[in-house]
């Protein structure tokens, strides 16, 4: 079943096409990797899907609804969550507070309700608390819930960002280089966690440079080069594709042999 349908989208920066008529389809429940050399347009693609950038062409359809022209917060409400390449936590707030904020669009209390703190609001806060605990134990941070986010180790911050993204009950999560800065052990842990998230029925699309993770842990690979899609298919076919090898895999090899 199709979850995300990207149809010939383009994004221009000045005269340069950062994304040029890229189309692809994501099936519900798959783990998809977007790979490609630096500057290929991977993060731009994420910014287009989440509404941070406006589309210059094409359209994006998410579970039957068109996302064109929507604001990022509306897109989050529709069920798309993301993390950032450069971690963007709420650093002066506690770990638990970060996850609570993630639940914003699934809760309702308005100013008056928040000030009066009636029965309904208290029940809602209790539910928020419960979910926060659940998500923090999922990423093994429950013992650090009152720590400021800035005081967490780098790897923990990456996991907290994932927990925060999951707090909005998404159907699709976009992870922008989740393994960057992690050691091999932490990367393994991350892979396990990504699989667990998928098992909950959440579709995942990630930008990744770690080829072990990409080839071993995903169902679907999209390769971008200079804003164009040059490959779209399963990992096994990707490793054999001559154009991919020339643009990305081989280029890396060439760097190594120099």
């Amino acid at each position, binding site marked *: 079943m199709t979850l995300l349908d990207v149809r010939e989208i383009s994004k221009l920066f000045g005269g340069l096409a950062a994304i040029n008529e890229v189309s692809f389809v994501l099936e519900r429940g798959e783990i998809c990797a977007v790979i490609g050399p630096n500057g290929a347009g991977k993060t731009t693609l994420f910014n287009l899907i989440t509404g*941070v950038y406006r589309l210059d062409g094409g359209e994006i359809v998410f579970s039957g609804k068109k996302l064109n022209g929507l604001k*990022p917060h509306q897109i989050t409400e529709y069920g798309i969550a993301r993390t950032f390449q450069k971690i963007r*936590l*709420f650093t002066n707030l506690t770990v638990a507070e970060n996850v609570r904020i993630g639940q*914003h669009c699934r809760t*309702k209390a308005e100013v008056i309700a928040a000030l009066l703190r009636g029965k309904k609001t208290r029940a*809602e806060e209790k539910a928020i608390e419960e979910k926060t605990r659940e998500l923090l134990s999922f990423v093994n941070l429950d013992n650090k819930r009152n720590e400021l986010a800035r005081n967490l180790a780098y790897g923990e911050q990456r996991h907290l960002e994932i927990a925060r993204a999951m707090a909005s009950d998404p159907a699709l999560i976009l992870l922008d280089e989740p393994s960057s800065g992690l050691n091999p052990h932490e990367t393994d842990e991350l892979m396990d966690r990504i699989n667990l998230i998928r098992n909950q029925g959440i579709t995942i699309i990630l930008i990744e440079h770690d080829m072990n993770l990409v080839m071993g842990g995903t169902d679907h690979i999209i390769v971008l080069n200079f804003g164009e899609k040059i490959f779209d298919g399963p990992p096994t076919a990707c490793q054999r594709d001559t154009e991919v090898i020339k643009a990305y895999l081989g280029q890396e090899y060439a760097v190594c042999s120099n």
Partner: protein
Amino acid sequence: MDKRSLVKYGLIFLVLVMVPVVRPSDYWMNIIILSGVYVLLGEGLNIIVGVNGQFVVCHAAFYGIGAYLSALLTLRLGLPFWLNLPLAGTLAALVGAGIGYVCNRFRGHYVALVTLSFGVIVYEVMLNWLDLTRGPMGLINIPPPEPVPLGVYTFDFTSRIDYYLLIVVLVALCIASAHRLIRSRIGRALLAIREDDLAAEIQGININKYKIKAFVLGAWWAGIAGSFYAHYAGIIVPGTFSFLTSVEILVIVIVGGLGSIWGVLISAILLTFLPEFLRSIEFLRWIIYGIVLMVMIIFMPTGIAGIGRRIRVPIFWRSTAKEPAN
């Protein structure tokens, strides 16, 4: 209520009752009441600047709008103070919403510039719309609040004790609401926007809407403070609501610790009393005041809240104050 908060509120209550028991002179009573007004102003601005992270320099304008509306409604239409008080808060909040809407088109320093000019405009209007505000002569003979019989005691506002009790109630309401706000969905959204507005928007927060909400809440308390002040002082002049007052309130928030309710409370009281203690050395007064401020900002960039957290004062443990970037 757990034991710790019982002790906390017990202590606060004790200090508050001590004031009328000790019966300070009218002069000190005046300072105490004014520090209450500054607490309202500081806590209000703290929501916009400290919690929501918008650098706003026109809080005295909201304060003035509340004061002038309340005074005019009484003087021209004969409306009672008790009706004017919420009306003043409401008008200030509405104006705040308008400014918030305009500020949504700007970021960072430009918000400071936009609000700065707005503050100046309001001041100029107070100064020059002679028919309405009597300009620099100010509005005089603003009557005190109407008496409130409460069982054996009637609050008739002939002594400062009655004003004191009223401002204590207002401050208590303000602190309690700020406290609830910060620990609610709304407060968390405001804090998230301060921390990182893009990340906040990606969490599903409509940042433009919430920035306006911060303005509404902050300006509301400034309007309330203005209304109280007008009927307490009995006379208002534009100078009270000038740019300098806006800066003073901003200093209170920064010294208290951006986003810290208790920090701002303490700093508002401290900074109202400080110039009074320095009165004996009149010619050096504002110089010393300025030096103290500079020393505070250099050596305690996180304000009173930051110090409180470091030396582990319980009320600052769960502080939402902002720390400087490493």
